[in-house]
């Protein structure tokens, strides 16, 4: 059930990317897609009654071993957050430049190339 809701979040992003005219909205939709995928990865790693994957001083090691959530997806998501931040910066840079050149954020008017 929760996975399906997560898929819905991704699909909302996809819908926005494909249908919206405003280029800033397209950037936002892509960000939403990324959120959905990141969330999905973390959901996979979750364990019922889990603890966070860092060993506390007061915690016994066996308890940690039996209850720690999966740390690997968290590392992957950290990487992917950084990548999406980089993408966002680059896209916003392009948006600013596109606005400067065309005077609009409307993608249907940013159309000099055919096809």
């Amino acid at each position, binding site marked *: 059930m929760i996975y399906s809701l997560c898929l819905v979040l991704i699909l909302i992003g996809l819908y926005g*990317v494909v249908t919206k005219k405003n280029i800033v909205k397209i950037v936002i939709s892509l960000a939403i897609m990324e959120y959905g995928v990141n969330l999905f990865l973390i959901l996979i790693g979750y364990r019922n009654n889990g603890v966070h994957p860092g060993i506390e001083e007061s915690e016994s090691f066996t308890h940690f071993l039996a209850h720690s959530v999966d740390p690997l997806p968290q590392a992957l998501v950290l*990487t992917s957050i950084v990548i999406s931040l980089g993408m966002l910066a680059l*896209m916003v840079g392009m948006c600013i430049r*596109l606005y400067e050149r065309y005077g609009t954020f409307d993608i249907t008017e940013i159309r000099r190339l055919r096809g």
Partner: protein
Amino acid sequence: MNNLIPLFVAIPLGIAFIIPMISRRIKGVAAFLGNVTMIGLSVMSLVSIGKSGMYHMGGWDTPIGIDLRLDGLSVLMLLSISIVGFAATLFSTRYMQSYTSRHRYYSLFLFMVAGMNGAVLAADIFNLYVFMEIASIASFALVAFGCGHEDLEAAFKYIVLGGVAATFVLFGIAIIYGVAGTLNMAHLAMKIGNKPLSNPLVFALGLFISGFGLKAAMVPFHSWLPDAHPSAPAPISAMLSGVLIKAIGVYVIARLLFNVFGITPRVSLVLQILGTLSMIVGVLLAIGQWDMKRLFAYHSISQVGYIIIGLGLGTPLGIVGALYHLVNHSVFKSLLFLNAGAVEYSTGTRNLKRLGGLYKTMPVAGSTSLIASMSIAGIPPFNGFWSKLIIIIACVMSGHYWLGAWAVLVSILTLASFLKVQRYGFFDSLKISVEQIKKTPPMMALAMILLAVLCVGMGFFVITGFDSPIIIGPAAESLLKGVFVL
């Protein structure tokens, strides 16, 4: 030998980090370092021909750490990346003089090369994703490097579709991790390879094919390529069409399908359909174009179709043909883009209607483009002929007569459209006055001659064995070995 493997990634990365720091102090160091790095990488990949090995990053064992895998196929890709890259940097030294902040150009170029090398060597799917992103982000920025109207528009289209592709791939990785619990390709192959795929895995495979297919510009996902490739500076077009779509598109699809999931008849069928569609749609769209680079870009889609068909056949001969065509295409298509760049540099236009008679005024560009055109159109004894012949024979031998027929037909149409390029661009009467045409600088000429010599030379690979030519034979073997074993 093994210590050489991480250097394929680390050296371009290091140089790319250093260039922005020192280029302010020393003039012209960026171009010099770029060229030297590419020469070094070419030498390294030449040294590693015939070698294979695994490198454990940080000394951790296989499923725990990240591995780098060097085998025949990786060597083939590394070779084409570094040689085409060297030609492109050589070409850039003069061509990029009309742009500002060239140190960023070289830095991004090396990041792109490092990303491709990393993706080709990766033996871990998440690592593959990370390096694919390095290569693609560098290419997004490089497409927009001119900051003109068209450049930005094409780059924006490219970055949006690239972002969607990356998200699909990451989603696929997440699903696979949820099912199999590992990311290492060999470990993964042990768990899921050659077994009937469960529903989540089929979905993940679909996401991978659409994600990497978008990067490879296969037909339902091709709409960014004809904009992005022509808008980039010419050496970048050569890199994008020549190697990028293969290193992070076709190569990855081949690697995942053959070595991780295991190829099944149904997947083969999907590949054959996608390949045929790309081949036909690409050439039909190409034939009406008058912009030289745009025409070449459409042909990239069509030629990638040949490669995908060869892979989709799944027979040894088909794979040899596909990989042979892959390297051939990377050489002749980058040569064609460099030609277009030289023409644009000299005459200021690349519209075929306004060009003509360049064969006399630009002999180097003219003759090399003739060689490249004959290669891509499949005229014997050039390299393109042999690879297409192998693919067509493989089609016929495996009983797919229709695929063979389509391949022959597309080849004829390709010939027609390149006859058009040659006639209007190079053989017709001169439309621009001779004084307006700048001379081709020697560095550019050298880059084009290098690739043209390769075009001719690689035609002779076939002598070393029709069904397993040198370098390509081992590469095909590494795909044919089936899924990885731990």
